[in-house]
């Protein structure tokens, strides 16, 4: 197991290096940081000084090495736009995005899995048909439209939920949380539904398809023939066998929720990393973009590692080397 984790981390290294190279390349090819920082009026001497100061006169590989070394220490330089350390900006924004993403993922799982099981078991019932139709809406409507519609209904017409922002937050160390205040929780409702709806319907349809497949399996028929109660057959035997593909998708989707919360954060002016990123793109704030890119790929790599470990927990057939078949 330990060896497995080590080998996966080694495999992740080239991925991270490649992403780092791409992030770094942005500095060289997306705009000219020197021109951006100097503004309109400058002398050639000032320019030379800045180039030297930023280390841009060094060879490419030396610059890349410095970038890597700093990145490993969580040091991504100063934001061009805000003139503050990028690491501070991200640390400030990350809690908002992570709380939103995990709430959305939690909602999607909590509602999506049971609905998937239900529609798989009773696939011809009136309710199943309704849920399937509704899920098509979730899958096909774009996120920004859902967000705007929710704002229209709940913030403008009914006036029960806020249309933007995070509400009041409470500081727990450097982490600012919205879970502990009433306005914070109210502010989470619409964005998390907007962000989670697609995932919810995706999980529901996936669980349903897997359930339909698994319910035909011989071991389900045999479990019924052994007289096990329906609850044990459906949730113990059938659902557990659907988990491997479901974990895969949920893991990837969790990464996607965090990385692509951009649209939702923009619609709801949610002070998270996505909003920070989109503002940085507008102003070619390359240090922030590079850091964001690296962070998100590290996140994907980590989630994939966790997903792989979960496979092991769920499916004993993958635990090779532990006891051989008796032939």
């Amino acid at each position, binding site marked *: 197991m330990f060896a497995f984790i080590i080998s996966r981390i080694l495999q992740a290294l080239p991925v991270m290096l490649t992403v780092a190279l791409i992030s770094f390349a942005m500095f060289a090819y997306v705009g000219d940081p020197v021109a951006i920082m100097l503004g309109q009026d400058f002398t050639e001497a000032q320019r030379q000084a800045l180039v030297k100061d930023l280390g841009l006169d060094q060879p490419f590989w030396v610059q890349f090495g410095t970038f890597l070394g700093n990145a490993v220490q969580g040091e991504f330089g100063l934001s061009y736009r805000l003139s503050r350390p990028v690491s501070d900006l991200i640390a400030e924004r990350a809690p908002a995005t992570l709380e939103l993403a995990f709430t959305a993922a939690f909602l999607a799982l909590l509602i999506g899995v049971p609905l998937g099981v239900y529609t798989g078991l009773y696939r011809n019932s009136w309710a199943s048909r309704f849920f399937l139709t509704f899920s098509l809406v979730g899958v096909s409507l774009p996120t920004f439209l859902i967000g705007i519609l929710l704002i229209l209904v709940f913030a403008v017409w009914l006036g029960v939920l806020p249309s933007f922002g995070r509400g009041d937050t409470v500081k727990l160390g450097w982490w600012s949380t919205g879970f502990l205040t009433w306005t914070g929780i109210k502010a989470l409702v619409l964005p998390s539904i907007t962000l989670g709806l697609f995932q919810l319907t995706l999980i529901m349809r996936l669980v349903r398809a897997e359930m339909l497949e698994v319910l035909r399996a011989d071991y389900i028929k*045999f479990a019924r023939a*052994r007289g096990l109660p329906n609850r044990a057959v459906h949730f113990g035997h059938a659902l557990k066998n659907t988990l491997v593909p479901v974990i895969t998708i949920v893991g990837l989707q969790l990464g996607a929720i965090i990385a692509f919360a951009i649209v939702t954060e923009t619609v709801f002016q949610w002070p998270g990393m996505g909003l920070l990123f989109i503002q940085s793109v507008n102003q070619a704030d390359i240090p922030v973009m590079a850091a964001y890119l690296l962070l998100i790929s590290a996140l994907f790599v980590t989630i994939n590692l966790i997903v792989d470990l979960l496979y092991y927990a769920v499916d004993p057939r993958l635990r090779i080397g532990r006891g*051989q078949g*008796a032939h």
Partner: protein
Amino acid sequence: MSGQNPLLEVRNLRVEFPTRRGTLVALDDVSFTISAGEVLGVVGESGAGKSMTGAAIIGLLEPPGRIAAGEIRLDGKRIDNLRYEDMRRIRGKDIGAIFQDPLTTLNPLYTVGRQLAETMTTHLPITPAEARKRAIGWLDLVGIPAAAQRIDSYPHEFSGGMRQRVVIALALCAEPRLIVADEPTTALDVSIQAQIIALLKSLAREKGTAMMLVTHDMGVIAETADRVAVMYAGRIAEIGPVRNVVKQASHPYTVGLMGSIPPLDRRVDRLAQIDGAMPRLSAIPKGCAYNPRCPKAFARCTQDRPDLLPAGATQAACWLYAEGEAGNG
């Protein structure tokens, strides 16, 4: 069978599959009994309705299949019209089942010990600790070496033959009085088949469990069964004591079936075969379903459908054995 109540009584069972092109009759007028401790072999070609009969008895017909007529009684009580939950309590507890392919019948994600314990705690008033102890006992009984160590193994850690032993333990662990074994050896190596059959036979005898043994292997039937039912196109063609059916078959189909088994004691150039193929369910001929292939068919066979008639020591659904008909009846 006269006097005492049979353990299982199937009477005029008819199973239908409604399809878009009309209703298919998968089983028609099937009647037989199994006494306590008796082994009934059920043989026939693929699609003759052997497995369907087993599925109907344990109440697990694949939808849209349904019992359209007739009744199934266990100990005199009807079980074919029970609600799902009531039938569930009978499955595993009173009627155990063994399926064809041990590689797919066990849930891959649970240890064999857990699957055994879960079956026992569902049906018997025992604690999980007691269930685990008994699970080890059952694994030992079905011939799994080092049962106490193997109880926490997963199905994929066992070979096919060993897995079928586990399946047998699962079918027997709540001590049912009847086992429906649907081709329990078909998916196994020939060398393992005999072991599994011997195990089933000895356990059934030891526990006094009756068995309905579905197979198309006449050797297994001759070895194991007390009586045998021969099925053809959804009906029973002949039923009787195994010795008589094998040695002095009455129904022309049974005669053909027995004739197609290669003899071991002499060399034959060509195996006997029955011309033609069993009709599809959608095209069962009028009269006796076997009449187009039957060497002894006569006028009545193409008109009326024969019921089981006494024919020597067995009963055969054949007009040859009707009073006053031509033939040797």
